[in-house]
């Protein structure tokens, strides 16, 4: 009965919209932390399926997406971001609309929260290195091997990873890493000893690798890295074989969306078989749905790299990461650990002797270098 009413309502809405080609409903604003050239096939396919809706797509950083969702200036309809904790926090504050769509109901439980936030991709987090590294040491396949590889002096100044300060994704990934193993901090200390260069985006890291500035990158988004490695043979992508985090890029419809109908149609498309088919075939984002056929699917990825893929759970525990005090504590520890081995080349750091070392260290944690923008017109995505 309820379903019938919903169908009738949709019918009425459809009739109404076709009759007067409503100007208000013919637009859809998407604010996304996702490169337009990556998302373009999706958007084009949606526009082809709904020719009456004109999509305006704006891509920016995760923090910018979050800012716009909060300020709403001007409000967008759909927000897409890879910073899962911030997206969940938006929903927790009641800024996301609950979607009562068949596609939403059928979406796997582990990849959605409250039927408000939907993880629509399945992106592994990877290690990337230059072939040069293989000449000096065994290329790392696990986190332990990565720690060992960091011992070779040739890597000094040629290591890169996310900047947790400026990148929401990077911060979330490190938090998740720290949750899994306390030895993560050894890794941070070792990277710090090699003079790690923090970058705000995966693309910046990949460009540095191709240019030869970096030999080793840690915690890159697999979706970008794998696509990049196809065109840049000097870059090798390794999905860690002990454990590999998987990031779900999330989408939500704003509660105050100016075009709710178009937003719902877009979500139905994105989560439905059509959108997922485009995702699996024409973008490197990997479809989390079983039964979708294409080169970029979670099922295919599992076949290739094995069973040690650990999706970051999309639930309320992510809210802890955005707690200001926890973030502050994490950043303090990060700052401490990354500089702990500055003075010595001791590969075996111990967190207990931090106090006296800290007092003797300079204030700046690591040398910052300006990151070159990739697009002149747009902000870059992580």
């Amino acid at each position: 009965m309820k379903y019938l009413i919903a169908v009738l309502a949709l019918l009425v809405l459809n009739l109404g919209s076709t009759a007067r080609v409503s100007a208000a409903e013919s637009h859809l604003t998407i604010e996304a932390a996702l490169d337009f050239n990556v998302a373009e096939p999706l958007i084009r396919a949606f526009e082809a399926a709904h020719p009456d809706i004109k999509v305006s797509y704006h891509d920016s950083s995760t923090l910018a997406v979050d800012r716009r969702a909060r300020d709403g200036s001007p409000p967008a309809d759909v927000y897409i971001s890879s910073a899962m904790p911030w997206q969940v926090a938006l929903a927790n504050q009641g800024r996301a609309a609950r979607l009562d769509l068949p596609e939403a109901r059928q979406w796997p439980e582990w990849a959605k929260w409250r039927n408000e936030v939907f993880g629509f991709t399945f992106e592994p987090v990877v290690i990337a290195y230059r072939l040069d590294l293989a000449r000096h040491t065994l290329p790392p396949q696990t986190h332990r091997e990565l720690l060992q590889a960091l011992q070779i002096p040739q890597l000094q100044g040629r290591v890169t990873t996310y900047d947790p300060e400026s990148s929401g994704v990077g911060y979330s990934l490190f938090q998740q890493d720290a949750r899994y193993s306390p030895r993560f901090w050894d890794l941070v200390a070792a990277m710090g000893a090699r003079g790690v260069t923090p970058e705000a985006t995966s693309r910046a890291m990949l460009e540095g690798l191709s240019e030869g500035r970096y030999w080793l990158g840690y915690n890159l988004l697999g979706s970008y890295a794998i696509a990049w490695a196809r065109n840049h043979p000097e870059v090798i992508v390794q999905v860690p074989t002990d454990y590999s985090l998987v990031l779900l890029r999330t989408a939500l419809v704003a509660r105050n969306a100016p075009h709710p109908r178009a937003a719902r149609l877009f979500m139905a498309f994105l989560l439905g078989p059509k959108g997922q088919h485009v995702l699996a075939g024409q973008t490197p984002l990997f479809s989390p749905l079983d039964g979708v056929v294409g080169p970029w699917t979670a099922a295919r990825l599992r076949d290739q790299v094995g069973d040690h893929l650990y999706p970051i759970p999309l639930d309320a525990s992510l809210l802890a990461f955005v707690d200001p005090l926890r973030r502050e504590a994490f950043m303090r520890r990060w700052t401490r650990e990354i500089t702990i081995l500055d003075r010595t080349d001791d590969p075996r750091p111990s967190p207990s002797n931090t106090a006296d070392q800290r007092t003797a260290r300079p204030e700046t944690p690591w040398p910052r270098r300006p990151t070159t923008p990739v697009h002149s017109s747009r902000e870059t995505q992580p």
Partner: protein
Amino acid sequence: MIRRGHSLKRRLMLWMAGLTLIFGTALLLEATLSANREADRVYDGVLDDAILTIAEALQWQDGRPLIAMPAAALQILATPHEERVFYALLGARGEIITANASLPITARLQKKVAQQPVYRDIDWQGTSLRLAGREFTSAGWETREPVQIWVAHTRGARNALAHDLVARAAMRFILMVGLAIMLVWLAVRASLRPLTRLRHRLRQRHSEDFSPISARVPVELSELVNTLDQLLARQRESHDRLMRFIADASHQLKTPLAGLQNISELALRSRDHEQWHEALKDIHAGASRSTRLAHQLLQMARLDHDETSLATRLDLTALARERLTDWAQRPASAMHDLGLEVPDHPVWVQATDWQLGELINNLLDNALRYTPPGSVITLGVEETDSGHELFVEDNGPGVPPALRDSLAQPFVRGDRHDTSGSGLGLAVATSIARSHQAQLSITTPDSGGLRVALLFSHERHQRNP
């Protein structure tokens, strides 16, 4: 004669429906209340767990509280129902240490939570939340300050649980009612079966069958069956009496009629005027006996079915005097010594005067018939301790005690067949006594003979003089 009442089954079902409605409403209300309480109890425990988990992560450093908000606490708080979760940690002066929402925690609540944990339903930004707070005194190296931990979540899981509990209670109730209706229906059918059996048995009965109903019935019906049995027994008695009466009456009427027939036949054969005259005298006597007999039979019938005569207040002495005067003038009493023995003041009783008059007539008639000439017959009224007594006494031969009890039955003449009489007199007297609720006693006085007395006892007759 029997009003058609409601169907027992329908009435029972109506009662059941009414009770179900009342109890059902009460039960649902109670279930809703208790389900909400239960849901709050369960999920308040979840709030407690979350608070304790957060408290566990709380540490003091450099004079200020530090906390890496535990993900587990928020996961617990969210419950599998994916609630929206909120928390706030407040310092000693109510300042926010960390929070993910500006929860409406008033100064009053802050003061209250210092004493004991607080649980509240609150409305916040159009959402109803369950809020819980607790204060912890944690010790650091530099400071010892209390920290208040407040957590809240939406009510989705609670509502779902409460709804589930209510639905289950309602389902149980409906099942129970269904079962009860079925059982009651069966019980009613089973309980009414003896009634049906009884009906069948009564219907099949022969109209002359007055034997007790020997049906197995439940205790509740046994009284009815007993009453029916008693009624039947009384009917049989009355039926028997009637039959005996009819038989006796026809026998009694047959004798004088046969005598008349004989005399008239003899007279018809004769040509002698003298004999005709004799025969006519005999016929006259026989006819008057028959008339008297018929008169008495009529009286009996009238008494048995008289329901219209009203008792009035009358003076026994006056009645006795009037009757005696009447009888003293009749030729039948010429050979006897009739006397009156009454007090010199009126004696009042409730009675029907014609019936009492007939009673006296019968008793005097009997006394005159069954006593030899010259006997003394006394009609009197006496005031005794137990009541007023109207009596007729004679000094004749009397009746042997063994036969006395049967005197009151119709056509029994106390072993005396030498005199003319129907044997109905005392039977009529007994009937009259019964209709006056007075006691008829037949005794032998000290002087010999017979004394028949009618006692109006005080308890019955002097209450309304």
